[in-house]
């Protein structure tokens, strides 16, 4: 059974990357009831910014810059594309999200000329080869899940023990009432986008150090899968998103290991549909009653 080990190690690492993106989806959905289709593209932009900054300056300056730029992007998207539609039907909001995703991809296409941007060893140390349980792998494979868990723990603390966290929970529970109770709903929503984008930036840094290049569609698939993870774990729930992401990462790699490589993506979507049909609230989601 030693042969299963490399798949497990890789699956946990992939799951960690999905988890960092999935939190962004789940936070936003929890409050706005919006699938932020642009989130995967925010992730891609973080990768691009990393490519450009790390070639221009040392990485200890570049990496914080990546986080700042990504957070700013997330903040601006919410301000410009979602806030004006707050009272609009949900379909308009979702169309706006698709439009933003389209816009980001096309702008990135224009800037990069449609050519993959090479990633040249942006963070030293982290992409070295190491040996884990007799298996050769990269250090980042080990760092990713650990960092993910650390960040999630910090986030859970933030949500459960700070004033802002309380406001976020209140807004997620009941948007209108929270507003009536004097919670500054706009700043709460901005905050969720800031947190989501920050985690996506960290995820992008870990994801793209492993990858030789960033292309404009690099974010779509990880984004979609992270969303599936969020739904699987119960959208709106942070532990759910994390657990869902790890399960999906592991399943995908194990399916590849079993030889069904053609269907690894299809499996993820099939799982999504099955969960939606059987238990739309996911593993940890709360039962939401529809207000008529």
């Amino acid at each position: 059974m030693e042969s299963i080990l490399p798949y497990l190690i890789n699956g946990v690492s992939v799951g960690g990357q999905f988890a960092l993106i999935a939190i962004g989806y789940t936070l936003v959905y929890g409050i706005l009831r919006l699938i932020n289709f642009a989130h995967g593209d925010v992730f891609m932009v973080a990768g691009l910014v990393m490519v450009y900054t790390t070639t221009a300056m040392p990485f200890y300056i570049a990496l914080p810059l990546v986080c700042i730029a990504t957070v700013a992007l997330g903040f601006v998207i919410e301000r410009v594309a979602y806030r004006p539609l707050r009272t609009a039907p949900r379909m308009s909001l979702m169309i706006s999200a698709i439009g933003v995703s389209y816009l980001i991809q096309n702008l990135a296409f224009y800037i990069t000329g449609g050519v993959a941007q090479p990633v040249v060893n942006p963070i030293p140390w982290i992409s070295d080869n190491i040996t884990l349980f007799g298996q050769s792998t990269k250090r980042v494979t080990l760092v990713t899940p650990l960092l993910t868990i650390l960040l999630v723990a910090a986030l859970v603390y933030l949500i459960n023990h700070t004033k802002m966290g309380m406001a976020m929970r209140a807004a997620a529970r009941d948007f209108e009432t929270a507003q009536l109770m004097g919670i500054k709903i706009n700043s709460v929503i901005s905050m969720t986008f800031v947190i989501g984008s920050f985690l996506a930036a960290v995820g992008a840094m870990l994801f793209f150090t492993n990858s030789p290049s960033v292309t404009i569609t690099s974010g779509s698939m990880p984004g979609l899968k992270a969303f599936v993870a969020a739904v699987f774990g119960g959208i709106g729930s942070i532990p759910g998103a994390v657990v869902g992401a790890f399960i999906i990462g592991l399943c995908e790699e194990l399916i590849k290991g079993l030889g069904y490589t053609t269907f690894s993506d299809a499996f993820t979507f099939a799982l999504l549909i099955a969960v939606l049909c059987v238990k739309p609230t996911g593993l940890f989601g709360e039962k939401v009653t529809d207000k008529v």
Partner: protein
Amino acid sequence: MTSEKRKKLLTLAVLAAALAACLVVDATLPSYHIAVKVISKASVYMLVAVSMNLLNGFTGLFSLGQAGFMLLGAYAYAVLTIPVAKRDSVYQYFDGGLLHFSLPEIFSFLGEDLGTLVGMLAALLVGGLLAALLAYLIGLPVLRLKSDYLAIATLGFAEILRTLFQWNGLGPITNGSNLLKSYPTFSRATSYVLLAGVLIFAVVLLINSTYGRAFKAIRDDEVAAEAMGINLSHHKRMSFVISSFFAGVGGGMMAMYMGTVAALPFRSSMTYEILLIVVIGGIGSITGSIIASFLYIFSSEWWLRGLDSGTFLGIHAPGLFKNGFRMAVFSVIIMVIVLFFRRGLMGDKELPDLLGRRPKKQKKEVAGK
């Protein structure tokens, strides 16, 4: 009554003018001219956009599976019309494939030209029916879902379908990842416009029927619609199935336009593109979707090409007008529409409404005097 008549006359006049324009284009330009290509492509998009509008705009079901149904239609069309003699070379890795018949050849007893045409239309029909069947099947579980869950579930189905069609296990039918080609196509823009036009006319009839009114009632208020005695699940499924049928036929026409079929182009970005066309035209307006399709395809494939290649409107600025600028400009325009002109070009009005209203207004003024 007179205003109704006037509307009809004006609409007919507009349609006749459009058709005449197509005929002129076909008569004066060779079939490989870019004008012929963009009219053909725009016709395909207009049909698919209308089919999406039927679902999203008229029934209020937010589905993102359009590309999947188009894929099914495109493959059905290609697989059924490739001449038997060409099958060996098309299915070069699958021993000539599994099917050894071709619809245009089966109908050849009608005469060569007519037989081919009937065969092609039959293949389009089969594509549409298959898409409708699939929609019926996945509609059972999926249509119970709420708006955004429905969107993501249909998107998932489209992706699964794409994987299946590329799978070598189905290779003897779908040719795996390899191109399907050598099938007959329309070479004239007018053929595309006419076919798409006739199908859209069918959609218009449907929308103006009792079913159409039921769809709109569901869109406006599900609970109220149910209270009025409308069978929600029946009507939703019906709208989904019919919309998918037209998307399937549209996919078959897309196959004709492309000349080769592969599963790769039918990814979610194609659905997004169609959705954005619907939004530009106005959600809930058939003529809006039609006008938007033409504007979008003409601009992106032809008129605005200069934005990508250095010179636009006589301004030469290779530094600014480089690859991708066209789409960047485009997506900014789309965002402006989404945010500030949420009703799109037409809102939920149709061209005849606009054509017919002017004389009415004048009459009122006359009456006032």
